[in-house]
């Protein structure tokens, strides 16, 4: 195995970990309070939501990679695999947020309003006037929805990039590349969720400023994982 065929997957896998970590910070999650509509975001844990979007992206990427004529060594094809991962993840998260929003608005009867900003940065709508006293916002306002879609796209690209890196290392059996990518994805998604520590509304959230810490942590851990994966690939 020559050195260039090691360096490229090493860079891809390390970068993928950093992108996955960054992507999680964009996804609006409110946990249990959001499920009761007393905080902004989707009512589930960061890890679960990021993992859901990531796995859909991974499956979309794997589906694209399995198409006849797709060569991993071709950069355009590798880009196509990553983009199909991004689209898969965006569809999953977009639908989750849409259905969640329908339940919030028509089921619970609340107005989507963000707590961490007075004016929605995208629509310029005032937010604080609509926040129910005693809550920290509710529903999934426009800025959160857009932020979530950006996060899903990044997560899909990251998952797809990890998958491409693994295929490039020679883990050509999709089952092995998939399982390794899932383990790798979970590690980075959880590191990101520990950086956030509970709820985040998206890129306008003050906690978003902590993102560099999480990205550094993921870069280091992904580099370690990539070195182990390269060691493993020598036995293929």
């Amino acid at each position, binding site marked *: 195995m020559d050195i260039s065929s090691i360096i490229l997957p090493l860079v891809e896998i390390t970068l993928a970990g950093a992108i996955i970590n960054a992507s999680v910070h964009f996804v609006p999650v409110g946990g249990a309070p959001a499920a009761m509509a007393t905080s902004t975001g989707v009512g589930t844990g960061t890890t679960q939501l990021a993992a859901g979007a990531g796995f859909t992206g991974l499956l979309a990427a794997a589906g694209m990679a399995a198409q006849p004529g797709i060569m991993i060594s071709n950069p355009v094809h590798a880009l196509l695999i990553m983009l199909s991962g991004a689209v898969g993840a965006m569809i999953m998260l977009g639908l989750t947020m849409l259905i969640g929003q329908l339940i919030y608005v028509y089921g619970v009867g609340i107005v989507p309003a963000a707590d961490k900003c007075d004016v929605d940065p995208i629509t310029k709508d005032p937010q604080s006037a609509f926040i129910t006293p005693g809550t920290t916002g509710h529903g999934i306002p426009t800025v959160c929805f857009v932020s979530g879609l950006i996060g899903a796209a990044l997560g899909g690209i990251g998952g797809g990039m990890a998958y491409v890196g693994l295929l490039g290392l020679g883990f050509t059996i999709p089952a092995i590349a998939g*399982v*390794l990518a899932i383990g790798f994805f979970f*590690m980075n998604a959880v590191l990101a969720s520990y*950086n956030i520590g*509970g709820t985040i509304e998206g890129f306008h959230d003050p906690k978003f400023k902590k993102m560099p*810490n999480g990205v550094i942590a993921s870069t280091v851990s992904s580099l370690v994982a990539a070195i182990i994966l390269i060691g*493993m690939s020598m*036995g293929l």
Partner: protein
Amino acid sequence: MSHGGGGHAAELFPETQVLGIGLVLSLVGMYIANFLPEYAMLIGGALTVPACVAGANTTRKVAAYGLGTGVPSIGMVSLGMGTLSALAAVYLPVAFGIDSMATPIIAVIVSLAIGAIVGKLTQNPVGMKVPIIVSSMIKLSLMGALSILGFCTAFAGGFSANVFIPGAIETGMIGLAFIAAGIAILHPFNACLGPNESHRRTMYLAIACGLLAWLVFAISKLDAISTVISAVLWVATYAMFVKMSLNDASDVLYTPELPKKEE
């Protein structure tokens, strides 16, 4: 904000003891499964249960500090690190010409290393304020790797690459090990946490969850003896857990049947 903060209930079983039992028994189980493939599911599967229980015990200890992201996240990071370590242990011997008998030992070493690095990273730069996070990450990574490797070895009938890859990876069984062992590690404390959490009750649920994971594998392998034994043991431990929960509850009220018509 913490979702998992239940405070510390009295610790009845020392953590190191539980971990030691989990480590030794699961290693013994893997070697027996490798050398006696006909008893792989019966003995190997049964002896992987202690690894799941040890993982659940460590989850209980670390999650009581309040992680800020819920208990399941630590179970998932445990299995994420565990999958990488378990697969590394299968592939590395082939890559470096080591005898495949070293596979479980390599799984231990790799998982300890990954756990230590990820644990250090959660402290700095991420800044988790849990004093035992590094040691707990190491233990969880170790138990995640042992439970995945244990169940997959029991299913495939060996841990050398030529048996493990077609038997447990290409059949997709490693995905089942990921989620079944994951539930066995993260669920017990997640279900029992709260002001009245007791170590004994959580441990009973952990054993029941571990046995349930074994039952799932026994059914997938169509191993009749293992299925019957694990099902009987699971029903017994789970019934015991329900009984303990009812005893520990201040009161158990059942919703009465609604009257047929107004009197």
